């Protein structure tokens, strides 16, 4: 079994100054689309597939990994506007997303989920894109509220991005202005349902929520 090197080869993250960090980030952004599993895992999967009946094992492994993924979705604490207040309420003890395995984490490098909570301005969009790029794969994004979905009441403003899906790919859209914590919780459950059907092909599974 041949272990393929990553494409392109990403140097070890030794940052002496900010320029090194920027270079490292650029290399990470150049990674081909669909690089969701590690290279070693990909090789093992291919190896197992060549055995008779091996796909049963890989399906099991995938299901297990997806169960692990959906049970520990860590959202990055990234609030933009008034929706962030509802997001904080959802993360706090009354609604308690920690029972779903979600720990609001203050670092994009350890997070799997970005809840875009609020109006994305044109000036903020590059920073948002950068934070999203800093998150490790596999990663998901939830667009929360009318502003992040489509620009909302500020759609005709000169400074507003008309929907955050013009900046980053979005998995779940939560409507509302702002959405109450119940709505966001519903969206997060939907996302977990999507993650449970996650495949390395990169195709989005059709949501079939049991929560609605």
């Amino acid at each position, binding site marked *: 079994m041949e272990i393929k090197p990553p494409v392109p080869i990403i140097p070890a993250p030794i940052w002496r100054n900010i320029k090194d960090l920027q270079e490292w980030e650029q290399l990470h952004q150049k990674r081909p689309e669909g690089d969701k599993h590690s290279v070693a895992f990909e090789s093992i999967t291919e190896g197992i597939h060549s055995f008779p009946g091996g796909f049963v094992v890989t399906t099991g492994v995938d299901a297990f990994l997806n169960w692990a993924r959906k049970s520990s979705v860590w959202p990055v604490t990234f609030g933009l506007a008034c929706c962030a207040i509802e997001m904080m309420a959802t993360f706090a003890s009354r609604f308690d997303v920690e029972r779903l395995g979600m720990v609001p984490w203050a670092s994009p490098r350890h997070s799997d989920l970005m809840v875009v909570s609020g109006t994305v301005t*044109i*000036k903020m*969009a590059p920073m948002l894109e950068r934070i999203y790029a800093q998150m490790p794969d596999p990663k998901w994004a939830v667009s929360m509220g009318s502003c992040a979905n489509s620009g909302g009441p500020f759609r*005709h*403003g*000169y*400074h507003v*991005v*008309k929907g955050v899906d*013009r*900046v980053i790919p979005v998995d779940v859209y939560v409507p509302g202005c702002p959405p109450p914590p119940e709505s966001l919780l519903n969206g997060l459950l939907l996302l977990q349902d999507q993650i449970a059907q996650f495949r390395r092909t990169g195709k989005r599974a059709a949501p079939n929520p049991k929560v609605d």
Partner: protein
Amino acid sequence: MTHEQAKTLIGERFGGAQIEGATLLTVTVPAADWRPFASFAKDELGCRFFSFSTAVDWKEQGLEVVAKVDNVDTGLSILMKTKLGPGVSECHSLVPVFRGADWMERECYDMFGIRFDGHPDLRRILLGDDWVGHPLLKSYAVDTPHPPYR
């Protein structure tokens, strides 16, 4: 200093000024008297507090620059205005008189494109440096395509 005294002083010194209002004095001066009136208000009327500065786009009548200065000791407030005239976007800066006018006039430049003569550092403050146009002008098309996110 009472409002009546201030009115008389302004009338004596600036003949071209229109004075309105009872509690908040609204003084409209010609564009050439903009900075002299500001230093007069600061030194002789005691309005040392620069409250804000902004502009109004009156379409074909041109732009109007507005600033409010306060005398915090006597409660005298002066709203100073000047009409720049149609098609004109140059105005004297108030930064040599009030240092607090710096960012206000930068915002005014950002939103209305008024070039303040004598401003030390006139560049955009709220929008990005690569922004095209001045969005609070009435002639600014709202749905102007602006790369890369629109």
